[in-house]
């Protein structure tokens, strides 16, 4: 366990595994990564071996410790989650920044600034853990203090009230919006607005089209939202408009390429 591991043990293990038992111990350490909530958590645990205030922690030392841990995992040919490797790469980068003299041409934050931020993150995580523990240790409703056990049940007014929670609402919406994703493919006639339908609809409406109106306004209700339905309705409405123009019932115009196609009753 990393928790219980001293510096000495770490150093000794860096020199390889002499015995089977050492190897088993090292593997146990790696397997225990499962018990950690990510690299930051592991770093926080490792930082405890320094036995100092988190504000005075040696980030360089911590980086060495973490990198040797990752090396051992590799030596054992054990897979680490990507998060842990990303952190290792970053710490290697940080280590080099901390060790090498600063390059004045280099942009970005200095090694010290990066180290300070990491120390801040560790301190903040530790602080959140501490307050979480304090919070959970408080007197709690239903365990240490109690609400009224018998609420009043006067039967004078019995009014039915329907209710729902925000969660119900969101789950309901999510249910509708995702149900199509999983439907087996089928030719969907419901999304089709036929030329015949469009013609019939237009014939009924052109009587009112005294002024120039965008043919997009003739799309039927219920065919304007869903892209597939809208596409079908647009195509058939356009074709129907052409048909009506051919019959001499309407005139069409378009002011430019991709401009709206407009329609007017021909008297």
């Amino acid at each position: 366990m990393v928790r219980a591991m001293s510096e000495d043990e770490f150093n000794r293990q860096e020199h390889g595994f002499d015995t089977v038992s050492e190897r088993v111990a090292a593997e146990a350490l790696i397997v225990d990564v499962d018990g950690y909530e990510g690299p930051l958590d592991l770093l926080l645990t490792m930082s405890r071996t320094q036995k100092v205030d988190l504000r005075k922690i040696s980030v360089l030392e911590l980086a060495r410790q973490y990198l040797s841990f990752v090396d051992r995992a590799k030596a054992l040919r054990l897979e680490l989650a990507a998060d842990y490797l990303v952190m290792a790469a970053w710490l290697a980068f940080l280590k080099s920044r901390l060790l090498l003299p600063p390059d004045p041409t280099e942009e970005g934050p200095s090694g010290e600034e990066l180290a300070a931020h990491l120390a801040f993150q560790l301190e903040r995580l530790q602080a959140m853990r501490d307050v979480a523990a304090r919070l959970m240790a408080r007197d709690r409703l239903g365990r240490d203090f109690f609400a009224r056990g018998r609420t009043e049940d006067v039967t004078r007014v019995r009014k039915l009230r329907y209710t729902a929670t925000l969660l119900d609402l969101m789950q309901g919406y999510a249910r509708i919006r995702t149900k199509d994703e999983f439907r087996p493919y089928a030719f969907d006639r419901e999304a089709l607005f036929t030329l015949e339908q469009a013609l019939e609809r237009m014939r009924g409406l052109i009587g009112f089209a005294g002024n120039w109106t965008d043919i997009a306004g003739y799309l039927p209700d219920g065919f304007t939202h869903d892209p597939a339905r809208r596409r079908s309705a647009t195509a058939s409405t356009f074709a129907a408009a052409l048909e009506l123009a051919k019959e001499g019932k309407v005139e069409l115009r378009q002011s430019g390429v991709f401009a709206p196609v407009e329609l007017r009753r021909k008297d």
Partner: protein
Amino acid sequence: MSQDTDEKEQSLFQAPPVAEQERMCEAMLFASAEPVTLRELEARMPHGCDAAEALAHLHKRYEGRGVLLVRVGDAWAFRTAPDLGFLMEKETVETRKLSRAAIETLAIIAYHQPVTRAEIEEIRGVSVSRGTVDQLLEMEWIRFGRRKMTPGRPVTFVVTQEFLDHFGLENARDLPGLKELRAAGLLENRAPIGAMPQVGDGDADSDEAPQTGQSELFED
């Protein structure tokens, strides 16, 4: 030495003062759903307590208050004073969960408002019963919005201030998008692996489809 132990033992088994016993009875009767018998009270109190005496004090303490200590058979309970019954009307409201159809209809109106009945049916994929809309109108969670400027000029529905109050929303735009719902684990986990959202990418740009759809709909 032995005297010390004696004293300790004695205090250990000594019943708490009456005032303390009164507090105990008060708390137990308050928290219990049913009237509690004298025997039950004493069984739960430290050894040597006299619940009857404590209750006598408690009874007196609550005389003339908004809540009274009353005897129910051979048990005791707190009851609100009979003359204040008129204040309890609200407690008798029976709440019932909204039906699934109503919730879905409401959700679509909230996310897509202003929206026509035909559009609701298009999104839900089933027709919306008259009763559902009427119920939501009656609850004052939705109301009629402007008519749509499309042929037939259909009426639209929008959500009301009461709706926002009930769900603790500042405005309907605060409703989480589809992507956020999924990231929060609110979608049933049935999506094919390839389509699974990755954690952490929920905030930025990958949410385009629902996001833009939503904002478009709200831009008027």
